[in-house]
């Protein structure tokens, strides 16, 4: 019996259309756009101005605080302007625009394909290299990785868990990364283990990717303390807390507790690969794997894309946007964000581009709650989503806070399991955002 997490979860159709598509490239854009807030925390501060020449890997915006990340140019050319651009949040945010000229790289970056295994750096040096490279969590939340690698001193971390779950339907970017770069990922895992002084590392992979499990198992024999853990398929297994429960059988208490409190630290495989490239190849985070897919897309594919490339260019590479497209999503169908335009640039957290046909994109009519409690059984955090939604509708924020709304991970299991098609997640998000704002303003007053 394979392991999985204990509470809730749903089984959406996995629809991994691009499972066996080798990662291609999308080509260089004419103009690359780098939004200044591609991560959680303070936006980066531009350190170039209009007319400056940049190379691939040049720092163009420096971290605006400890919880923030550097942003590097992924193309060579001239900075044309610093202006606002529509990003995946659905609003215009400040960004740096670079007109592409040629493809000239910074000399320090090692562009060869050889796998550099040995690493003689001290933990501090590793973390500072990761910080300089602007690496953020690439599973979607974009939390700056150097912050995660600097856990509180009293935390007793036992195990590094690498997230190769990719439980979102349709997405295969991480799957292909594991198949195409297994050695790099394993070296990355041992680098993180060294940085944190850990003896044990686990790579959790869902059972729909047994080829990756076997390949990594074979390769992992050469490394000390790395174990590959196949997991039973269930969404949202890629959630940090769910993965810790699945792999270690431990549950992370409600905030302010963090995974470090139960002895775990979780990194996405994409992040591990980025850490490998940052530490061993001096390569900042300037490109990532993106799955471009959808049921009526002509050539669904996996692409290695430079950040800043407009999503429309990825869609072209996949054979253009199908005529019946009703919704364009950045990310997967469960947690992705709908895009208002295809000109949105790829950022560090863009894991996929999904085009949904019109008839599937339109929501069914909402009907009254029939008290079936399917949302309660589906919630992986053990919350009562119907109650959260009602409290949000009524504006009872005090009660919602008592009911632990803040631990919601917004995975969408409740809404997808609701037979009455109630927009539960919409209400839950509203409640969580409002309560979060109230808590923040209360803390600020103290």
């Amino acid at each position, binding site marked *: 019996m394979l392991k999985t997490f204990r509470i809730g979860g749903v089984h959406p159709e996995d629809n991994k259309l691009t499972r066996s598509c080798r990662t291609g490239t999308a080509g260089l854009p004419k103009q690359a756009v780098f939004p200044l807030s591609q991560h959680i925390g303070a936006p980066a501060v531009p350190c170039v101005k209009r007319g400056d020449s940049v190379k691939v890997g040049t720092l163009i915006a420096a971290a605006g605080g400890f919880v923030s990340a550097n942003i590097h140019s992924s193309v060579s050319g001239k900075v044309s302007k610093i202006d*606002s651009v*529509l990003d995946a*949040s*659905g*609003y*215009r945010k400040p960004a740096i625009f670079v007109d592409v000229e040629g493809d000239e790289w910074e000399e320090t970056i090692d562009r060869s394909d050889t796998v550099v295994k040995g690493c003689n750096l001290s933990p501090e040096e590793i973390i500072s290299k990761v910080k300089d490279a602007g690496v953020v969590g690439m599973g979607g939340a974009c939390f700056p990785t150097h912050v995660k690698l600097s856990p509180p001193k009293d935390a007793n971390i036992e195990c590094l868990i690498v997230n190769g779950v990719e439980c979102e339907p349709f997405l295969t970017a991480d799957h292909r990364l594991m198949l195409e770069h297994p050695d790099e990922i394993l070296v990355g895992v041992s680098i993180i283990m060294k940085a944190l002084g850990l003896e044990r590392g686990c790579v959790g992979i869902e059972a729909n990717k047994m080829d990756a499990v076997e390949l990594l198992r074979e390769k992992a024999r050469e490394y000390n303390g790395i174990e590959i853990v196949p997991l039973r398929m269930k969404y949202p297994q890629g959630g940090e807390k769910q993965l810790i429960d699945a792999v270690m059988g431990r549950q992370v208490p409600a905030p302010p507790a963090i995974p470090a409190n139960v002895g775990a630290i979780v990194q996405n495989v994409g992040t591990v690969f980025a850490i490998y490239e940052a530490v061993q190849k001096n390569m900042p985070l300037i490109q990532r794997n993106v799955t471009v897919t959808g049921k009526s897309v002509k050539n669904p594919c996996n692409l290695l894309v430079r950040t800043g490339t407009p999503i429309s260019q990825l869609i072209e590479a996949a054979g253009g946007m199908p005529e019946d497209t009703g919704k364009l999503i950045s990310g997967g169908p469960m947690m992705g*964000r*709908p895009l*208002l*335009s295809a000109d949105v640039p790829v950022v560090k957290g863009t894991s996929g581009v999904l085009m949904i046909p019109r008839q599937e*994109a*339109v*929501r069914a009519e*909402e009907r009254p709650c029939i008290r079936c409690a399917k949302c309660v059984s589906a919630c992986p955090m053990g919350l009562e989503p119907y109650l959260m939604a009602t409290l949000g509708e009524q504006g009872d924020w005090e009660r919602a806070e008592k009911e632990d709304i803040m631990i919601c991970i917004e995975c969408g299991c409740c809404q997808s399991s609701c037979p009455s098609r109630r*927009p539960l997640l*919409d*209400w839950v*998000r*509203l409640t969580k*955002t*409002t309560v979060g704002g109230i808590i923040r303003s209360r803390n600020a007053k103290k």
Partner: protein
Amino acid sequence: MSNAILSAVVVLGVTGLVTGVFLFLISRRFAVKSDPRIASIQALLPGANCGGCGFPGCSAFAEACVRQGSLNGMNCSVSKPEAMAQIAAIMGSEVEAVVPKVAVVRCEGSCANRPRLNVYNGAMRCSIANMAGGGETGCFFGCLGCGDCVSVCKFDAIHMDAVTGLPVVNQESCVACGACVSACPRHIIELRNRNKKDRRVYVSCVNKDKGPVAKKACAVACIGCGKCVKACQFEAITLDMNLAYIDPEKCRLCRKCVDECPQHIIKAVNFPAPLPQKQSSETVSQTETANA
């Protein structure tokens, strides 16, 4: 037989008497002394419990009044000035002159003015639509049209216009409680002074994008040209983040800015129509004045 009746009467009578005396003493001993003024003030308040005064309800307002000992700094915008004067008389203080206000919707992005680019399909609440992104049009500052303001209004003073898809304030019913102002996630609604004869001049747009971007998104967006700022003799208009704003305290209602605006979004409401048309002030609707 008669003994049984007599004993019952005696026992019950004595018990009743003793309990009565006991309850009387207890009620005297533990009487909660409440100021009679609280009840009389509360009777004068509208009893809508709208929260517009900043207190949880009318009784809380009355209590706060008495606790403070005066009406200073407190006002019930729902009550008529006479009622406030009566309350002030109860408190033995003078009533402060409060400028009556009215809610003003600062967006003209009707379906005709603002082309729809996307379809929002989620729960029909502006606060949720606002989280999902910029909205259905290219203007990320304007009205979302789900009617959060309408659902919070306790005085039936704001309605969605079926044609334009924008909320319309009924200035007779509006009591300026501010519920719609805080319900609007985009801060479109503002409380502005009613002035003499309810006349108001305001910029009916909140778009802070640069001129070309704003104009592309909406035909009647403020483009931040600054012509109104130059036209104003009283320094009442400021330009911040490509958006003009008329300070209601400084504005003298001269209407010089209205004709200057190339986008025709400075609204002058309840002014008599220009002379050639010879209309009485009652029949002049907002839009007519605006287009004039």
